[in-house]
């Protein structure tokens, strides 16, 4: 991948809206025993925090990318840093940094597994989308440094 900052932000937002929100809803709905009124909104808050953390880190990635001769961002990097972002979110929860996401969500291992399951549910399809599925719909995306719209 050879994204620009704008491309990273736009693609992140696209994946958040098209995959992140529906998949989170699905996960939360299943977790709530298929009862829409019993859905835990914390899943959505985690997703939003994950989005914001990534959004803030994107300029850092772009800065690092500038040191690479090809100005590219290999898939392995993308994969690795996605887990870093997830780790940061976990830390923010664990250390009670965010008033709206209390640390009791991670009070036991089961709590961690629930959040990990949520993350993987969103992350795996999003990563596959980056590997090529976005291009099926947005044929110009790969030439526009991951930005949306026409060339």
């Amino acid at each position, binding site marked *: 991948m050879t994204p620009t900052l704008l491309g990273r932000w736009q693609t992140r937002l696209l994946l958040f809206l098209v995959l992140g929100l529906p998949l989170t809803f699905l996960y939360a709905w299943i977790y709530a025993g298929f009862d829409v009124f019993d859905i835990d909104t914390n899943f959505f808050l985690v997703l939003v925090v994950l989005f914001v953390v990534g959004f803030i880190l994107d300029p850092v990635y772009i800065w690092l990318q500038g040191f690479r001769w090809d*100005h*590219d961002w290999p898939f392995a990097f993308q994969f690795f840093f996605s887990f870093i972002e997830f780790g940061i979110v976990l830390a923010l929860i664990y250390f009670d940094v965010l008033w709206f996401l209390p640390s009791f969500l991670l009070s036991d291992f089961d709590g961690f597994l629930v959040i990990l399951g949520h993350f993987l549910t969103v992350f795996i399809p999003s990563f596959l989308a980056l590997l090529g599925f976005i291009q099926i719909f947005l044929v110009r995306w790969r030439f526009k*440094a991951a930005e949306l719209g026409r060339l």
Partner: protein
Amino acid sequence: MDKLTFPIVLTLEEIGASGARRFISHVELPVEGTYTVGAATDDSVPVSVAGISRGHLILEASADAIVLRERDGGTTNGTFFNGERVTAAALVPGSEVVLANVVALSIRGAGQDTATKIQEQPKQERQESGSRPSSGSSISDYIIVRPGAEERARGGDEFPGGLFAGEIVSTAALRQHEAYAGEVDFLALGGGIGNFVWVDHLRVYGVPISNIRVIGIDRICYKNYERYCLNSQIPRHERLRSNAISVPDNVWGFPGYASRESFNALFRGGKGSAGAIFEVFGEPTLAQSYTPMAGEVFKSLDKEMARIGWFDMFINGRILSMRKTDDGRYAVAYRLTREAAAANNGQREQIVIGRYIHIGTGYPATRFVEDLQNFRSANPSHRDYVINAYDPHDAVYDAIGRSGKPVTVMIRGRGIVASRVHQRLVAEHDRRNANLRIIHLMRSEKPYGDGAKFRRAKRPVFNDVEIQPFNWPKACWGGSLRADIERMAPEERAETFEILGGTTTAERSDWTEMIERGTREGWYVKYYGSIERLVPDESGKANLEVRVKTRSATTEYREIHADYIIDCTGLIGDVTRSPFLKDLVETYHLPRNNAAPHGEPARLTGISVTPDFEILGLQNGHGHVYAAGQITGGGPYAAVDSFLGLQYSALRSVDHLHTVRAPFVSSFGPLKSFGQWVRWCQGVAP
């Protein structure tokens, strides 16, 4: 007397029994040197007319005159100058020499415009007709036109002649012409991969087969590309220097070659590696960059050609010339191949009218570097020992392998082709001839850490070669650099290309291994410098004696005895070497890109195009002309000469066709795109 300017163009004519003259060919002497005219195929100007003997005449061309000498011992049938039999004479413009009463040789006068009438026969065709694969040019490198007999009879060389004399032709007049062959909306000229990708886009965007025509020499779009691959040692099972997502058979770039390769290996028992997809995941840090096998690329193109109806749109012919019409379109004159003409009542000259044109004629010619060309001119008997890596030269490897005796081969250059040639030589060394020695000549040393620098990044160096997976940094295709370069002013662009381009090779562990092993065992040696003098080896140690001027702390000269030199310094694409493009550029005063950084004398490269790959100077009412490939080099997009670059340019120009409301061209939004992708997966027509 006026000095002669090179290239000097000679005219050869056959003199019949009645005294009637028949044009044989124009011959271009590119530089000062010694040339031979004679019946043998290794004469620099071969003439197959009865009465002419092998090595009949020697021409010594200099700026003062062309001095003719009969070969030592004279010839049976003699040489005549101004009616007198001579053994030597000086040829000046306007004079003529007659060989054996059957061939007249004259020099074109100074100031005569030779360019307009000369038609270069593309090198590829010459190679095909050759029976000497080792040199690749059974017909001399200097002959620039050799029309067939029936074309001569009809004055075919002149077509379309006066009809296309002006800048604009009248559609009404064309419709009356005997060569008029019809009208179409979309017309692709060249028939190569560049055209193919453009037509593929048109088809998936919604244009029906009946509205598109393609004119080209080879029906198979990758034929010419494959020839270059084979010559530069990439057979079908070898991997190309291309990316997984650079898929000329698939508009979306998905699935790429890596996922297809993995899928085939896992589920269909196909060739290749099941782990290919993980290479893409890990490249370039955890794994070597993935590259597809040439044969797989060609197979996928075969499939897509069939799917989009390529053969129903294809016209087998050679493009001659193009003009704007008076109704906002374009007239294209072409000559059908003999076989295609047979189905057309033998009528070969054709003119077709189109509104949207795509020029994808590829590399105009492979040019041989000057010093080696000079050597070949001066030493016809040693021509086969000096080789351009892009010309067919498999026979050389075979000769090396079979001989078993000590053979020394000098490789010049350090790019990807040098790596390929080196790999092939190492294979001969390992399998058949352990006495093979490889001398690698590079212009200068390239210490580790001395790679090109651009902004915050630096290009890595290994074994004196700058390492880059592809021929440009990746972000030139679709990343930040693509947008940056598009925005740059021409001078800044030239400076950037100077840094980002340059000679590079890919990092491959097998190449590293062969260099290290060869160096350790002493059969691979590197020299830094340039060839100072190249002559046939008189000592009998080898075929060639090379004096290399080395560039180290002090300049030294080194005599090297080599049997072959394989030049890998590159394919030189000069648009003016294509008569078709040269005529377009001159007729419509088309601007060209300039590769020279600010303050340096101009170095013209490709034809200037917009970011949508349109040639603005050819706009004609509602008609538009686009170009793709190397002929647009040096412009707003760097990587024009690559599969992915061709996909990009097709996308840009077909998107532009939508904005100018070309018929059937949709906006290709997400739903249409998805629908067409599903059809691609099913293998059904768009």
